[in-house]
């Protein structure tokens, strides 16, 4: 229900000017209803009259590429300005703003923070409504919308990146990370990094009953210690290149990229559990109609094969649409864009993880810090 939401054009002061609260409450409700459901988008271009679309996505090279591949054209075609904000995190910004004035109309997320935000309030347009108004979403593999919050548009498989010239033989299964030949040469990430979260949950599942078996995960982290802990995947690449770690949690795209550069690194993609590193977009529910329509157009353009092919090639991600082409670097390593190749991907129960996050972070940090 949307009864508590006011349309952005009516601030409290303006409402008082208009008359009594009772006088305005009925029209407000009706407008809310209209705003929450009635914006439609058919995939074409339209004149947004110079409106600004507030987008939150990653910065740096990512931003440069999105600007080059999409934003300039998008702004021209839709007569709008894209206000691109890369100052992560987004969660506190959503929570801090009044619900009827979300800081962003479109947001690109990794799963944990997206689920955390979705849990904190109904900030996002329901996924079925989004899909009904984003024609290109008809073309995505089912896993791209299985999270029920946003549409995943690019992904990478989790894997171990390992040095091919150290600690032979190469790993063949998830549990090999714990093999004695990698003692003191294992790498993972700080607890706030999604890769570590997924690694922990995968360990819970592989060594315990399921992802909820946290004790199995703690025990696995203990057995893997001492570990080299990185903040980011880029730093882990440097550790791998220098041979400071022989095996590390990584996403497959980055491992293949290193291998392609001639560094003695290969990837063992996890098959026992198949979590994926995703880029997932949400559309904010309570933005004004023009911005919401622009949001749907933006998401539709993101899922366009023309954009996806170029973007995923630059970042070594795999696209989620059935008609997109797997980047050459990934195809070279046997990655395919087929129903078989994308089957069985798992989305951990992030709500459960977030409920236990404080305990997990504290315990895992203690384990990491005690070696």
């Amino acid at each position, binding site marked *: 229900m949307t009864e508590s939401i006011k349309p952005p054009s009516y601030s409290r002061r303006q409402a008082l000017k208009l008359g009594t609260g009772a006088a305005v409450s009925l029209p407000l409700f009706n407008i809310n209803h209209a705003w929450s459901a009635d914006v439609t988008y058919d995939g074409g271009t339209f004149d947004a009259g110079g409106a600004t679309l507030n987008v939150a996505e990653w*910065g*740096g090279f990512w*931003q440069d590429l999105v600007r080059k591949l999409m934003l300039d054209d998008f702004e021209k075609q839709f007569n709008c300005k894209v206000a691109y904000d*890369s*100052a992560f995190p987004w969660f506190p910004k959503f929570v*801090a703003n009044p619900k009827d004035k979300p800081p962003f109309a479109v947001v690109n997320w990794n799963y944990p923070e997206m689920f955390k935000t979705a849990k904190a309030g109904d900030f996002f347009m329901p996924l079925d409504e989004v899909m009904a108004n984003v024609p290109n979403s008809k073309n995505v593999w089912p896993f791209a919308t299985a999270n029920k919050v946003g549409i995943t548009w690019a992904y990478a498989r989790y894997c171990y990146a390992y040095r091919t010239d150290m600690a032979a033989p190469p790993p063949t299964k998830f549990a090999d990370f714990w093999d004695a030949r990698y003692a003191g040469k294992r790498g993972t990430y700080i607890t706030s990094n999604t890769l570590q979260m997924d690694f922990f949950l995968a360990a819970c599942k592989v060594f315990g009953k399921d992802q909820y078996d946290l004790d199995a995960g703690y025990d696995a982290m203990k057995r893997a210690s001492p570990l080299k802990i990185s903040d*980011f995947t*880029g730093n882990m690449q440097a550790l791998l290149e220098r041979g400071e770690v022989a095996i590390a949690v990584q996403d497959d795209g980055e491992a293949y990229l290193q291998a392609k550069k001639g560094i003695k690194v290969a990837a063992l993609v996890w098959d026992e559990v198949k979590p994926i590193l995703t880029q997932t977009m949400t559309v904010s529910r309570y933005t004004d109609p023009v911005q919401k329509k622009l949001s749907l157009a933006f998401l539709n353009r993101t899922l366009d094969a023309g954009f996806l092919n170029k973007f995923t090639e630059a970042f070594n991600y795999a696209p989620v649409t059935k008609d997109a082409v797997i980047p050459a670097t990934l195809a070279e390593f046997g990655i395919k864009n087929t129903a078989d190749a994308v089957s069985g991907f798992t989305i951990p129960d992030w709500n459960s993880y977030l409920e236990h996050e404080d305990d997990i972070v504290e315990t895992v940090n203690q384990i990491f810090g005690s070696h």
Partner: protein
Amino acid sequence: MSESSVPLPFRVIAALGLVVLLLPVVIVVLSGLNAGEYLTFPPQGLSLRWVRAFLTSPTFMPAYGFSFTLAFGATLISTVLGTMASVFLTRSTSRWTGTLRGIFMLPIVLPGLVLGLALYVFYATTDLGLSRSLTGLLIGHVLVTCPFVIATVSAALVGFDLSLEEAARSLGATALGAFLRITLPIIAPAISAGSIFAFIISFGQFDVNLFLSIPNLQPLPLAMYASLRYAFEPTAAAAGIFAIALVALSTIATSRLVSFKRMFGA
């Protein structure tokens, strides 16, 4: 005091302190000149490739320019406001002076993230048009830089001989004239030091930027963080070289300016 009269242990400690202070600078410079693919130390050979990457980057150069402009603006405002506040705080006999000083200094005590978030929430909920605006960001920077000006200028004003101003007044100068022609030149080195602090704090500010930054205009610290997060290339360290150079140059330039003032004053 001649150098030889400083006890040896003190000199050793001072030398160690200098090494500790300079070591990060050396590491940043060498990392920025790294020939390798990643931001690592020691560098894998020396090269200017990442310096060139910085100079041609569509992200870093605008971010550098924006941070410079922002820091310059914040420094100007902080220097004027901070100096005025210092004069008031050191000369007022109000019983609220101590409380006011505490309030002025609060941004130093508060963790930057808390201040940034608090301002963000304030902007977002008051609907003053400051949220995600340049004015809002500038206010945040002035808040975190002003205490540094107040602290340094107040220190100079505490020992200031007010009879100098009184002498000027007795010779016919107005209160403002006496302040501008007598007090200001004397406390200029402190104002200069405070403004340098303000500039450095603003230029390197991360916490406040994280919450108050505006779309399409990324300050340098955020651009460096994004670079480390996604690429981990030495471009961020190359940007660090230019940031260090800017701070060093501004320090030298300001100190020269103060010397000229003294010269002209003399």
